């Protein structure tokens, strides 16, 4: 792994992050609406205050969106031929993947920090410092599989197809993760399917972090399994993706 390339790539991504303001704005707006409405109530299922549950939800939502949006960057880069250019450099498939995941993590972290800051400053949400840190950390690490999904979409999709594919993936994952509406108001089978969705466990991981309780074994296994399978697909695809379009 090459530190200098990594740095240049990261600064390039963060300059693009200005265009991600909209990505940050949606979860913040939803947080302000829902948080101030039900904030003080207590969620007995998560053993957390509603405001905290909503903050974690919106943090997960924003971070997931930031990570998945990498797909557009990659599709654009690929369509202009940048990936072909990269193929004639020493950058390996793994190196490429690590760089792209790191970019997603950087933007995702920014989104998490913004949502938490708004929650603390505007809605006066209260958690012990370790609670915030662990919740943020859980969400942050938890978006790795989403960054990998973005890379995979970026590798497969044609530019015209990326937008609908992103929307379907994003909306599906947001719903299954219970990031919009609580899963218990949806049919039971949706709840069952959700158990396999990375977004569901992303949300859970954030809640466990916030409550400083719970067994992180299951989320780690599910998110880890997703990451492994996706990484294998990406590496396989990268080796085949060099031919001219």
């Amino acid at each position, binding site marked *: 792994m090459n530190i200098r390339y990594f740095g240049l790539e990261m600064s390039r991504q963060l300059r693009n992050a200005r265009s991600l303001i909209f990505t940050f704005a949606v979860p913040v707006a939803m947080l302000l609406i829902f948080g101030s409405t039900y904030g003080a109530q207590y969620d007995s299922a998560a053993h957390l205050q509603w405001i905290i549950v909503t903050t974690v939800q919106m943090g997960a939502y924003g971070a997931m969106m930031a990570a998945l949006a990498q797909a557009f960057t990659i599709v654009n880069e690929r369509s202009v031929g940048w990936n072909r250019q990269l193929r004639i450099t*020493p950058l390996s498939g793994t190196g490429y993947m690590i760089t792209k995941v790191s970019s997603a993590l950087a933007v995702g972290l920014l989104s998490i920090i913004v949502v938490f800051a708004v929650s603390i400053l505007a809605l006066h949400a209260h958690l012990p410092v370790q609670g915030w840190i662990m919740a943020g950390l859980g969400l942050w690490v938890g978006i790795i599989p989403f960054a990998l999904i973005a890379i995979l979409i970026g590798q497969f999709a044609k530019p015209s197809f990326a937008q609908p594919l992103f929307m379907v993936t994003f909306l599906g994952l947001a719903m299954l993760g219970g990031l919009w509406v609580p899963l218990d108001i949806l049919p039971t089978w949706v709840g069952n399917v959700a158990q396999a969705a990375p977004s569901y466990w992303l949300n859970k991981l954030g809640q466990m972090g916030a409550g400083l309780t719970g067994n992180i074994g299951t989320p780690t296994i599910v998110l880890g399994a997703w990451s492994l399978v996706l990484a294998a697909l990406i590496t396989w695809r990268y080796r085949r993706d060099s031919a001219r379009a």
Partner: protein
Amino acid sequence: MTRQPAIRLTGLTKKFGTLTAVNDVHLTIQPGEVVALLGPNGAGKSTTIDLLLGLARPTDGSAELFGEDPRHAIVTGRVGAMLQGGALLPTTTVRESIALIHALHKHPLSVEEAMERAGVADLAKQKIASLSGGQMQRARFAVAVVSNPDLLILDEPTAAMDVAARHSFWASMREFTDRGKTVVFATHYLDEADTFADRIVIMSQGRIIADGTPSEVKSVVTGRTVSFTLDSADAASLQRLVGVTHLEQRGNRIILQSEDSDATLRALLAGYPSATDIEIVPRNMDDAFMALTGPSTSSGTEKTGASK
């Protein structure tokens, strides 16, 4: 350490379904050679370039750069390339693009030096999206040389360039080859191949059909073209004039290919004093190219010169 050829292709074959894009290509290029790869569209030039860089896997045969796997030459920065369908990021500046690739290589030139060599130093802060066709190609050339390669592969480097841009591009290329480096370039411009390369490889339908110096390749079509206007011409008797190898009639315009244009001309004037608008031109690279790649000619499989 023995001197390995810069490129060695052995029985290289690539099939896409039923289409054989590259068909049993054998080619060895020594360090220091400047080789033009010519051929009509679909001849297999770009696929050959993809294969020799390891960007596509051969169906059969192998490609080696400096005696090793192509990927090894790429990782060690010994090969740089300007590829078709490979481009720079529109939102970055020229300097940023070069710096990104620069950062990936182990022993690169400085970014400044690469820009200097490609003649893009004055464009450093310009966005890639704002470059003209010629400026873009020079920026890509800077990216190709930043690893300080021993071998450059250029796929139609002067496409989308105007005459002046082509001229300055070849000037910077000459500086590169003057350092004893190897260059392989694919082109549609026969005059570029003629004036710049010291070896020309012509491909057609996935095969190498000619391989030699420019003069060897041109010698496929010897002699000159004699053309004139003549009413009520008798093609059969014109064909029998001294030195004539081929006759073509377009209305009352007669075009003769001759091995001895002086003798043909004397016989023509003696036998056909009414012939007017007489022109004699040497046959050129285009004729050689057409003769070698033309679909109708059986001489299309002819091999010339130095083909191993």
